[in-house]
């Protein structure tokens, strides 16, 4: 799957309704509602690297930690540090979801991890864990929420368009459109190809223009969820 994230910051109720109408004309398969929570943490300035002289009171470096939890993946939290290191956290244990595992995309904790005593089974979502217990390292700067979103599946399931309204501390910031293209119609991950691919999709489906990001952190070594979080971090850097 390759993805692109577009933020149309000039969106208004009229343009959003119009876009939804136009998508509905393509006879998509509706896959339900969704929302997301995106948090931006900055390194705590009073956490001082050992190389820095004692006389300085605050750290000179600036680093960011981003977390993304989309609601369609239960309790999942993607964490991206410094736009380089990716970790995917989840609370779902294999045996808990059982028959619900219709989607191979869902990542779960294997049963053995719980049974052999490595976890208590009462985990926190990572963004809460970071906000509660890693305060000395990371401080929460922004909390971006996506509400009232819809998921449309098009082109026989090869193309998924997700839309969501973006709020920063309760203030409307625009319409976010996430485009996912299934792997077997993607021919390459080179940026020239991706520009062409997403340009075609934007024109075909009249996606409102805005800040867009489809870049991968590392084009030779893609990581689906990590790259998605990276794209959100590029688009939603308020």
């Amino acid at each position, binding site marked *: 799957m390759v993805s692109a994230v577009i933020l149309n910051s000039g969106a208004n109720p009229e343009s959003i309704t119009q876009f939804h109408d136009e998508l509905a004309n393509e006879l998509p398969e509706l896959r339900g509602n969704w929302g997301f929570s995106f948090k931006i943490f900055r*390194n*705590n300035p*009073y*956490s*001082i*690297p*050992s190389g820095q002289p004692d006389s300085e*009171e605050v*750290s000179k470096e600036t*680093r960011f*930690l981003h977390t993304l939890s989309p609601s369609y993946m239960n309790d999942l*939290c993607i*964490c991206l*540090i*410094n*736009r*380089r*290191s*990716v*970790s*995917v*956290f*989840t*609370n779902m244990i294999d045996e808990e979801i059982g028959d619900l595992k219709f989607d191979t995309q869902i*990542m*779960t*904790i*294997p049963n*053995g*991890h719980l*049974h*052999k*005593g*490595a*976890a*208590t*089974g*009462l*985990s*926190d*979502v*990572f963004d809460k*864990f970071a906000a*509660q*217990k*890693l*305060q*000395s*390292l*990371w401080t929460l700067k922004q909390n971006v929420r996506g509400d009232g979103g819809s998921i449309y599946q098009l082109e026989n399931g090869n193309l998924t368009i997700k839309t969501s309204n973006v709020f920063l501390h309760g203030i409307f910031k625009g319409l976010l459109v996430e485009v996912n293209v299934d792997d077997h119609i993607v021919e390459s991950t080179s940026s020239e190809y991706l520009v062409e691919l997403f340009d075609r999709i934007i024109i075909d489906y009249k996606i409102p223009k805005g800040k867009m990001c489809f870049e991968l*952190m*590392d084009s030779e*070594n893609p*990581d689906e*969820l*990590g790259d998605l979080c*990276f794209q959100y971090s590029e688009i939603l850097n308020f």
Partner: protein
Amino acid sequence: MVHQLSLVSTIPHSSYVQTISTLQALTGLTSPQPVSTYTLICKPINKFKPKFVPGKVNQIEQYFMKCITTWDDLDSFDLATPYLSDRVSTSILFNSDSAANTKKIWTLQISDIPIAGKNQTCSAQNIFESTLVHTHTASRKDAGDEKDSGDLDKDSFLQFLEDLGYNSINQFWIKGVRFFHGDIVIEIFKVFVRDDANKDSPSDSIPLKLLDESNGFQIKAFINVPKSTDIDLITQGSAELAKLQDFLKNLIQLEIPDRIFMDSRVQN
């Protein structure tokens, strides 16, 4: 968040069979569940020096963190046999073949110091944890960060840990069994550490030795309560632990651990 009520004890190796038999009879569990975990103890890399503002209470602390995963001992030894010098080993986890490591599941865990108070029936402690199922490090050639280029071979979990601000400082392995009695989990285990003196083991495995050379077992009886605000469950749990403590008192002396030793805050 987990609010954990616990009591601990130790038994000599000679009491192992009797203890297991008693617990089997008490719990009705003929084959207890095996426990085997590998823990990395991590410490924040940076020093934390908050600015003191008069009148403002600074409650942010730095904590040690535990990273826990499962392990398999290569020799599958029997816990009931006492002397196990040079017979336990584990495979090397972080080797250069990073593809084999990407699917390792880790639980990050930070715990508060147990709650203080008089006349406690058991130790009560808040534990925060989160489990990661996937890690990945992007190699950024365009970042212009020269010092990063050397880290590319590093395991992506260790890289994540370092970027998060933690460094592993120690490690230990646990092997044991556990019983369930109502809400109570009773764990009986031995703790292993790396045996660096043992040179003649194969290069692809890590030899282990007992932390406690006397061959004794550690026992921990605990109840996990999902919320620290759920007073009813906590009161009920403490009463159940006290009942168990009384029931087993001739066999195991279950005690409250010293909370000072369970302080995971980093002293600057």
